[in-house]
């Protein structure tokens, strides 16, 4: 699994992606990790099929005792079906995820890890010396859904927003925004159900100061590509299955 340090100051952001060992028909996912002091947060740790690659990759950078927190943006299997395994290897960790999904996410196995449900309005989480914000992104696409904003690093983890369906060996970063839009279009039109939810999210995130935007699939956005994405997304009609 490819690992890259994205931000390195008093705390660090890593991306783990493009796992060559994952079964072919499984959608490729990007996992992220924030390390601050002796604590860390793994964002959308991924499905059960990539668990061993994820654990091995994380342990290249931090010892197992330092994996203290998990975050799941929503309940999908590619986000958190590995929970039953994390539950055994880091039993003292805490899972932050939408509270609405508790009864569903526990189906993946959560006997030891402490389940910390995030309320609909969002909230904050301190990892080491770093304060992260949970930004509501409900109905995009899941009915209870959060993104994570780091005001110091100016990084927004945007879950399925900004996702693209691409080949396994594609670059981690956007190289040409215009051609990249083709790879994002169907994903957003079909998976995102609500134009109202889309506008609500855009209103929130346009107020944030963002240098890097990290989607859970596809490529990472940097600098002006972020505003370009917001404009493109605003103009896109979503929820298209109802039109058929």
């Amino acid at each position, binding site marked *: 699994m490819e690992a890259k340090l994205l931000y390195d100051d008093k705390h660090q952001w890593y991306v783990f992606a493009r796992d060559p*060992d994952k079964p072919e028909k499984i959608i490729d996912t990007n996992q992220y990790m924030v390390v601050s002091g002796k604590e860390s947060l793994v964002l959308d740790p991924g499905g*059960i099929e990539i*668990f*061993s*690659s994820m*654990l*091995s990759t*994380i*342990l*290249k*950078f931090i010892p*197992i005792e330092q994996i203290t927190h998990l975050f799941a943006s929503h309940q999908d299997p590619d986000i958190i079906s590995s929970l*039953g*395994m994390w539950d*055994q*290897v880091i039993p003292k960790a805490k899972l932050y995820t939408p509270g609405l999904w508790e009864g569903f996410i526990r189906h993946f196995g959560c006997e030891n890890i402490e389940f910390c449900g995030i309320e609909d309005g969002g909230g904050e989480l301190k990892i080491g010396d770093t304060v992260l914000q949970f930004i509501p992104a409900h109905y995009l696409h899941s009915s209870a859904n959060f993104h994570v904003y780091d005001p110091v690093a100016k990084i927004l983890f945007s879950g399925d927003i900004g996702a693209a369906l691409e080949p396994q060996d594609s670059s981690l970063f956007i190289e040409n925004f215009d051609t990249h839009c083709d790879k994002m279009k169907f994903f957003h039109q079909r998976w995102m159900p609500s134009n109202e939810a889309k506008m609500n999210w855009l209103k929130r995130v346009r107020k944030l100061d963002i240098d890097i935007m990290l989607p859970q699939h596809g490529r990472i956005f940097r600098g002006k590509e972020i505003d370009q994405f917001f404009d493109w997304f605003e103009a896109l009609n979503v929820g298209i299955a109802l039109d058929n």
Partner: protein
Amino acid sequence: MAKEYSPVKSAITSSQVAGELYRASSIARQLSLAAKNSQAVVHRAGSKVAGLKVISEYFADLALKTIKLAEEINSISLDISHMAVERWRQNTLVGHLRESQDKTHSDKVDIIIHDTKQRQLEINNRFNVVIRSLESQLEEIQQYMQASRVVAVSFRLEATQTDEYQGILEDMANNIDIFSEKIKQHVLDAKSHIDRLLQS
């Protein structure tokens, strides 16, 4: 019959070994750079450090072998990690099937349990073979690092016989020592992770 280790501990151990070897291979790349520098210095110094020519070539070869072996072990550790997780999943499945069997007493569930246990056995045997080979490869890297420290001693000795290159050669000897020691420490940590698993 091959010993069966806890799949949870096995998954953690193999990931820890992969982590140690990833760090060791990063340092081995620095060691390789030091080896290339030493070759350049020996070339520049010519007959003044003639005794070092063979040693620096040996050192460069050793550094490359170390990188290759560390990367191989890293890759094997990942395979072991996948195996451990697969065994873990099979264990969980057998547990659930047994619960189901207690309620249904179905012959079909019996057959599935038997087949799953067979797969578990195969994975476990493979796991045992690979983890033993991993141990011997780690020992091989340790031997490389001992040889590397001998190279450092030779550089230091040669340095005392030159004026112009004394500082450079001494710095090189120190770097070789530091890198070799760091790699050795990661290998020792990897070995102690494996020992803890094998003794569990």
